[in-house]
């Protein structure tokens, strides 16, 4: 359970957001919406302890995340708006690195089935720099399944994706929340997911 209590953030004395309260329980999915520059990505960075809030606290399972930051990270997957795959390594090298980093128990066969679902299986031995931006984004979203974490935090996951991939991503979200997961994501897109809650930043 994630609890955000009276969170405020100021950048150079300019208010980005103030007195924000939010709670996220199992099986819950929240979409954050807002105009450009309304502080959506900044909110995610404060949530992940990259930026320091001016006031307020964030609790994960009843404990302040500042004191148990690695406990929190250990159960969180963060998909940024940039691609964290290393361009000079092959797709498989990147996948193996992510799997090792999160101590994932997924087998090679399962990874291959995932690659096949996303239709990038023929590139498994190709360097990431030769993939298109949509394919790179799909590879990035593969981390959601690979890392097997409880809380998913995503920044603009729908960018660069085609209709089929958007459908797969929506289905992945639904499967995850039915499986006691929690999701927060920032997007301008309107996905068709039942029980989607919307937090408006305007």
């Amino acid at each position: 359970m994630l609890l955000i209590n009276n969170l405020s953030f100021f950048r150079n004395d300019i208010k980005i957001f103030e007195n924000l309260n939010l709670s996220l329980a199992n099986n819950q999915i929240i979409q954050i919406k807002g105009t450009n520059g309304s502080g959506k990505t900044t909110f995610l960075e404060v949530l992940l302890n990259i930026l320091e809030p001016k006031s307020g606290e964030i609790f994960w399972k009843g404990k302040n995340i500042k004191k148990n930051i690695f406990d929190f990270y250990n159960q969180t997957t963060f998909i940024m708006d940039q691609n964290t795959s290393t361009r000079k390594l092959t797709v498989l090298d990147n996948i193996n690195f992510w799997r090792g980093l999160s101590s994932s128990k997924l087998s090679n066969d399962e990874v291959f089935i995932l690659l096949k679902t996303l239709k990038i299986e023929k590139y498994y031995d190709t360097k990431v720099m030769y993939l298109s931006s949509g394919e790179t984004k799909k590879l990035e979203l593969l981390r959601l399944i690979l890392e097997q974490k409880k809380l998913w935090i995503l920044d603009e996951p729908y960018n660069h994706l085609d209709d089929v991939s958007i459908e797969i991503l929506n289905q992945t979200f639904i499967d995850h929340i039915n499986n006691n997961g929690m999701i927060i994501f920032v997007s301008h897109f309107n996905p068709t997911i039942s029980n989607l809650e919307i937090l408006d930043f305007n």
Partner: protein
Amino acid sequence: MIILKKIFLFLKRESKLFYSNIVDLFSNILFFFLSVFVFIFALGADEQLLKSIGVGIIWSLLLLSSTLSLRKFYEDDFKNGVLMIIHMGGMSYELIVILKIFSHFLFVQIPFLVSLPIVGIFFNLPINEVYNLVLTFFIGSLILSCLISISASMNLLNKTNFSIGSIIVLLFSIPLIIFSVGINSADIHFNSLINLLIGIALIFLGIAPWSSAACIRLALKNK
């Protein structure tokens, strides 16, 4: 146990990146050799002259060549967010910096170390001076890797001024060059100078992880 696996994983990734960027290393070593040749041709074929100033020239050129790869030290991993992902995988930034310094020492400085005896031949250096050069560079390259790490992390957000990073490295390597070059002319003080060099290396190994990690955190905040 898990953290050891992750450290091994990190080094494996670094070695793969090293193989894919091996042309960069070759061009750095080529730069080093060519600048040595330029010096030799500029000074003429006076054996005694080359012998007396050889070590000093080799050290200055080593410093210049090692600052060539400075900007690449953290930049790629910082830009695409890999540093953040590794941190979220359970490694502190300090540990990441230590591993980066170690892999830089292993994959960039050791090839330079191997090329030193060959360069020694061009300057007609006596064998004991070549030994000293290799020994001092072995310790000195650790100091250099630490300095490069500090300087590269300080310049993560600097997109315009390319020379300031090299200036930091060159400025702080002045004591290193004084003691490393001085070791040949001071036969009696050999041990004390080596101890001084090891001392400097230990100081930098102590300082570099904390200062680089602080700079990386600051850069992530102001990205």
